């Protein structure tokens, strides 16, 4: 049996984290949450994370910066960016940082689940 994948969700708005957990509950992942880049990096120290799903616009560290740092600490984790304004994120930067997917906020539940599933399978 494949072990349960661990997903780290990052957003400065706790209600977004609650809603993301609801969207992913049936997928059977182990879910960790963080409300800032600093908290997220601390959680990454603690153990294996298979995927990081981070909001882009956060006070302090941006999602892109967080995912760039996460790549160094936790290279095996798939990284996905969530943004209210996806067209503002340059595709070249996404590619340069090795970010797998960009999810628009508000998100489509089916699409988000599929994106995450596929990213974990083809990691």
């Amino acid at each position, binding site marked *: 049996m494949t072990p349960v994948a661990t997903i780290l969700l990052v957003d400065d708005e706790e209600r977004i984290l*609650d809603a993301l957990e609801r969207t992913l509950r049936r997928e059977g992942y182990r879910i960790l949450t963080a409300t800032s880049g600093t908290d997220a990096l601390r959680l990454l120290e603690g153990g294996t994370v298979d995927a990081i799903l981070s909001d882009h*616009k956060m006070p302090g560290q941006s999602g892109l910066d967080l995912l760039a740092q996460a790549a160094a600490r936790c290279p095996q984790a798939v990284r996905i960016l969530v943004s*209210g*304004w996806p067209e503002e994120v*340059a595709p070249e930067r996404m590619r340069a940082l090795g970010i797998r997917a960009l999810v628009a906020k508000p998100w489509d539940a089916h699409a988000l689940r599929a994106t995450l599933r596929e990213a974990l399978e083809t990691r």
Partner: protein
Amino acid sequence: MSEPSSPARRVAARPAAGVAGASPARNAGTLGRHAEAILRNLNTALLVVDTGGQVSGANPPAAAILGEAVEGLPGRVVWDWFPDTPRDELPFARSLREGARVCGAELTLTRRDGQRVPIGVSSGPLLEADGSPLGAVATFQDLSGIRRLQRQVLHAEKMASIGRLAAGVAHEINNPMGFIHANLFQLEEYLADLRRLWEAVAELRQAAGASVDARLRDARGRLDALARQVDADFLLGDAAKAVRESLEGAERIRHIVQDLRVFADPHEGEPVPADLNRVLDATARIVWPTLKHTVVLRKEYGELPLVRCRPTQLQQVFMNLLVNAHQAIQERLRTEAGQGEIVLRTEPVPEGVRVAVSDDGIGLPPGPGERVFEPFFTTRPAGEGPGLGLSAAYDVVRRHGGTLRAEGRPGGGCTFEVRLPCEGGPPPDPGP
């Protein structure tokens, strides 16, 4: 005209800077001799009234602003042109009554044909050499042009600040929308599961009702009573409906927020040189399927210099203008049979390029034309789009350093005109 020589003398009392090498005394002589020619040729409106407020002299620029012939002016009473202003407050009256010298007072004059003209007036008393009053003398200019410019500047500033506000609000709304949308979607899934559960319970109720066990039959009775009390079947069905409708609402808000986003300063890419004929044509192709049943599209493209721009944004502008033209035509066809026509015209102009989208729809709503560019201004019924298309277009064009104007035509129809500067100003003149 003998009277106007008096004001000329008054002017001459101060050294005239314009006549080089001449002493004040000699100037007085020159001005005195040529007073009438000077008055006639003076490039500012001049009006002289007697102590009773009757016009005793005026020059051609004054007549032009008053909308009359020069010969028709003497004898007219000056107050009659200013029905909006109490007579005591008129600069002429104050100069006559108190000898006041008024500088740059702003008034609205009403012409004989009813047209109103804003003017700036300076006036002073007209005195004989011995100080006895002859009347008053005033110079004035037509402020219509300046007023129009002021209105445009104010409007542009207002639009810019509304734009910033809109973009900020859009950002703030999007986060709560994120979880409202996701939660509603999740509730929909939960409710579908609860309904399946309730259907299983129905089977159990049936089985329990037929049971020999009295405790089971009692429990079923209580469950039935409770189900009746809370109206369980309705509740499950209506909860699903309420959630579905709320999701639709959330979806609508999401679109509005996205439209508002256009007002934010985008950080996307550098502008590139583009052929606007191609940008316009590509947009027309996208919109064509929705137009073709009711609209004939005519294209009159001129040869254009390249314009440095963000083509996807301008595509959005043309799209909004086309959609607006289509809606105006649809509106007209509600009460009339037939088809509408949209004309796309492009041409080079001295400062760059001009793109005009004309339709023969219902025309502009009454009121100031700029209003159609204000966010949420719409003539459509509630629920049929929030009225952001034209204001978004206005903002994009403004950010490209251009202008967007709307012009109605008598008898319906209107033209939206985009003017955009092209790189390095006008194309070089071929010259000889």
